């Protein structure tokens, strides 16, 4: 106090008792919370929105999805051709006003085929990620919730499955089964869910001993309520991040398999199969490789940026670590 007085050299104003008025203590008023009530999801959205890079990723993704939906329709409407129609008198054309991305070796329009490819790649990526999510959450949830021997056996099984080279399994599967959209999704998910199950297992194990879970058990809550009302909603952050980051992995794996010739079969195109197709003449017709390759890269980058942003938004304490 003495120090404060020295530092503050202004003379104190003279005060009289009349200058003071009693303050009514109003319990009701003093306990009012002024801040707007935000749900956990609103909070996350606000944090994500302030992250410019992640929002950039999100906007690019939305544009690509829109492109994949309406891109082929526009070309059909403007020029009247679809992804199968070819014009053998106009093969390997460079980009022009008639063929915005050029044409390929069979005279098919690259603009339509690139967006069709993006459509297929996105469908495969999303479907594989959602199946991973479903299997991973169920399998990981059982491991984490029950623990003990159940956990040991199930975890050993997934470790063994993980130890088999995944490319080998996938290629063998695609050789045995006829390559199609369904087979590729199956091949990608046969080991793809393991990572998700480990994430879920770790989260559930961490959360199941929290006191709020014990409190719910002490009130008589059953397994279903504990899992779906308490454990999984609180584990949703890491689950969403893993989901977002597993989409580009699936897209990349599909492109890779298509590049090897094991992907979707003609006349359907995916981005990977178009790059493979372009390999024969890429020195002379670089646009045939440029557009699909560029789109794969942009999709991958956008998902990864969004995923990183989501991770920060869902768990701010992880940032800068």
């Amino acid at each position, binding site marked *: 106090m003495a120090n404060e007085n020295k530092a503050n050299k202004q003379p104190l104003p003279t005060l009289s008792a009349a200058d003071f008025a009693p303050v009514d203590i109003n319990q009701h008023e003093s306990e*009012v919370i002024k801040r707007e009530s935000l749900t956990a999801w609103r909070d996350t959205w606000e944090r994500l929105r302030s992250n410019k890079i992640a929002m950039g990723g999100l906007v690019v993704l939305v544009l690509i999805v829109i492109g994949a939906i309406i891109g082929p329709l526009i070309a059909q409407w403007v020029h009247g051709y679809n992804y199968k129609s070819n014009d053998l008198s106009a093969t390997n054309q460079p980009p022009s006003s008639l063929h915005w991305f050029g044409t390929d070796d069979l005279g098919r329009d690259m603009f339509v085929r690139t967006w069709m490819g993006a459509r297929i790649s996105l469908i495969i990526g999303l479907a594989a990620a959602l199946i991973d999510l479903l299997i991973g959450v169920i399998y990981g949830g059982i491991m984490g919730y029950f623990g003990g021997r159940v956990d040991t056996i199930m975890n050993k099984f997934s470790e063994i499955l993980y130890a088999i080279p995944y490319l080998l399994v996938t290629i063998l599967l695609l050789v045995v089964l006829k390559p199609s959209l369904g087979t590729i999704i199956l091949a990608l998910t046969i080991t793809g869910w393991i990572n998700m199950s480990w994430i879920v297992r770790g989260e559930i194990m961490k959360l199941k001993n*929290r*006191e709020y879970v*014990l*409190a*719910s058990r002490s*009130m008589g809550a059953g397994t279903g309520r504990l899992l779906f009302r308490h454990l999984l909603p609180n584990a949703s952050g890491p689950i969403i991040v893993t989901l977002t980051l597993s989409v580009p992995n699936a897209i990349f794996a599909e492109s890779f398999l298509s590049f090897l010739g094991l992907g979707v079969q003609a006349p359907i195109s995916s981005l990977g199969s178009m790059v493979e197709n372009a390999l024969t003449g890429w020195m002379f017709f670089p646009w045939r490789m440029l557009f699909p390759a560029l789109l794969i890269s942009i999709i991958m980058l956008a998902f990864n940026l969004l995923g990183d942003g989501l991770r920060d938004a869902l768990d701010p304490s992880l940032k800068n670590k």
Partner: protein
Amino acid sequence: MGVQTGKNLIEVEGLKKYFNVGKGKVLKAVDNLNFYIREGETLGMVGESGCGKSTAGRTILRLYEPTAGSVRFNGTDIYKLSPGKMKAMRRDMQMIFQDPYASLNPRFTVSDIIGEALDIHNMAGSKGERKKRIEELLDLVGLNTDHATRYPHEFSGGQRQRIGIARALAVNPKFIICDEPISALDVSIQAQVVNLLQELQERLGLTYLFIAHDLSMVKHISDRVAVMYLGKMVELATSEELYSNPVHPYTKSLLSAIPVPDPEVESQRKRILMTAEGGGPIRSADEQTEDTAMVEVSPGHWVATPY
């Protein structure tokens, strides 16, 4: 201290809870507990960190399955109940948790937290009834009813603990285990919460098992006090008797650690140190520890022998 009818509400007999810690060793967290709690009474349970107080509380509520022993609530052995009957029994026995920051689900609103028990036991017929009951409970613990739509992170520690108390009261329980309900709170808030607990006990005729390591607070709130040491009960007496006339050396040592709010007396206070014997509660699985017998040294004052 509430209205006592003299009837035993809770009877704990030979309660044991061992944890397997691997390599053939077990942790005897709770080893042969025997006590009763009369209706309307507060039994304090004290002991150092890790002595098995919380494990005892959770085992009594059957959040952990016991290794041996029985807990009778109004004469019914709760460990023999089927899951359906146990669920119904949970309406009578509730718990208030230690850490008000960990005991409330961060994704639930206050009304979800308090209303969860109502939903589980279908105690609210309609939405309006549920809302009315939640507001009633918030009012009962001294919280603003406008706060029902808020999330736990918007409240202070004391307010959160009141939410936890309201949650425990939602099912109209007869018996509440207070597992160190004040140790995570500021001293000024501790008094408020303890006073609230005592007030609720009188109004609702509750029976408490009050677990704590704050000896002065336990003396203040409890009718009788049990002292635990390494998973066993070493002494049990009325709080007056225990604090003025401790018999077991561990109790004496524990009581000698209470600071006295008088500098002159405090400077004279001597700590009685105790050298632990027997090497702690982790034992090999097949090793038999002799069950200590409790001897009544004066009416209602029980001490574990040998000491």
